[in-house]
């Protein structure tokens, strides 16, 4: 019963937020009276029309780039992060390198990647992977480092070896932090994706938005913005759902 009230409350809050955002958008378009900010209804109509034509292909390309990048960043960042968190003596040697390179805005390497890896998907995927990899690596390492020592001791006392500790303690224990870093990484990945798709490419939503802008097709531009927003939102929802399933124990705690 209480759970039902909670869900209804959440749905109501979500729908209210959507209505408020649409209202703000509509008011801004009314105040500015600028074709660059069309009213929500016009933009939505344009989105529905564009998605039935070329926007769908661009959306597919962008989705592919983001998903592959996040996947690569995860399969590299998670094992390495857990390994460093579990082995502080090795982390001590690696940490200065991470500390030095983490704050560098990796997006500045985009021209180098374009030259070295070409203008295809590879350069864009490598750039997004590199940026999100750091976020996942650092968050996972810190989570593994701060894991309760009692968990490790108790499972070791049962006879667990190194691999079993990863499987039963470190990976599930770090999972909430990994999913949080993925959610944060997703936001960054979308921003970098937009930037990467505005140069030397003719595919992707970033290209679609900038191409519409150059042709002063503002409604088309907004259709691209909506597509990118929706893509980010749906991916975010999927990560949220994954957390509910994979970290059910956290839900019970709250």
């Amino acid at each position, binding site marked *: 019963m209480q759970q039902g009230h909670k869900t209804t409350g959440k749905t109501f809050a979500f729908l209210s937020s959507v209505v408020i955002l649409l209202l703000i958008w509509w008011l801004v378009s009314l105040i500015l009276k600028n074709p660059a900010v069309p009213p929500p209804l016009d933009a939505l109509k344009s989105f529905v029309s564009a998605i039935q034509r070329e926007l769908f292909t661009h959306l597919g390309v962008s989705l592919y780039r983001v998903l592959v990048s996040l996947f690569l960043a995860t399969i590299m960042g998670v094992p390495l992060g857990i390994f460093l968190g579990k082995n502080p003596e090795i982390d001590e040697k690696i940490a200065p390198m991470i500390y030095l390179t983490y704050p560098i805005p990796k997006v500045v390497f985009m021209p180098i990647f374009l030259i070295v890896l070409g203008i295809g998907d590879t350069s864009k995927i490598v750039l997004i992977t590199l940026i999100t990899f750091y976020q996942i690596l650092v968050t996972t390492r810190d989570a593994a480092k701060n894991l*309760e020592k*009692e*968990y490790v*001791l*108790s*499972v*070791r*006392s*049962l*006879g*667990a070896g190194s691999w*079993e500790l990863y499987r*039963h*303690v470190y990976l*599930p*224990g770090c*999972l909430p932090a990994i999913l949080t870093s993925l959610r944060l990484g997703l936001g960054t990945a979308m921003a970098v994706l937009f930037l990467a798709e505005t140069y030397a490419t003719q595919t992707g939503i970033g290209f679609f938005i900038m191409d519409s802008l150059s042709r002063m097709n503002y409604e088309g531009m907004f259709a691209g913005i909506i597509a990118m927003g929706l893509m980010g939102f749906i991916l975010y929802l999927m990560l949220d759902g994954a957390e509910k399933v994979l*970290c*059910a*124990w956290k839900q*019970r*705690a709250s």
Partner: protein
Amino acid sequence: MEHNYISIKSLKADYRQKKQSVVALESVDLSLPKGQRGVIIGPSGCGKSTLLNVLAGLNQSYTGQVLVDNQPPICGGKTALILQEYGLLPWKTVWDNVILGMELRKKSSPEIKEATQKVLEKLGLLSMAKRYPVQLSGGQRQRVAIARALILEPQLLLMDEPFSSLDALSREEIQDSLLKIWEETRVTMLLITHNIEEAVFLGQKIFVMSSCPGHIVQEIENRMAGDYNLRGRVQFLEMCNQLRSCLRGGEYYAAGA
């Protein structure tokens, strides 16, 4: 002659604290016969947990002789360890926590299922099998930790202040349960506690430790331990007082002597 299940001679052990090695134990001699309940009591920081970690095979950084059933201690052998905060994994249900040790020992699924049902039933936890530790009370969590240890049918049960976070009544209730389990299994037990009453109620042998670095200053044979009605008796209170003064630096003298 009684066979000593635990035999420790001239043990010196370190533990790591902020990248430094600290001597936790020095010249520790301790022996506990098979099937007895030993209790270690002493001030905070006297190395009690380090001693238990050595016996559980978790701390290999020691010198001297440590034998458990005539063998150097190893992890995952015939020894089970229950930690202060129980060491239950919050992401596993009660059932999954309990079966973990058997899974690690590569037991067959039917064997695991049968043993788990049996041990959960014995400890009154069967209805909570699908719950997560966070959904349990302190006493219930403690029972899960005991179930996880007992399912492995250990020969030695080590417990590091297992009842310290329980309220007084739950603590007494679970002390009684532990005693019942011991009566059924006759497992050798070594328990660390800060609680004088607990030491007198449970410990057939009480080892009093000094601090910095820890060593055994007194070994007390306690013949009244294990009587369920002991707590209200005058002798019990007398012995508690004697142990208290011993911990404060005085000498212990046998009750009635």
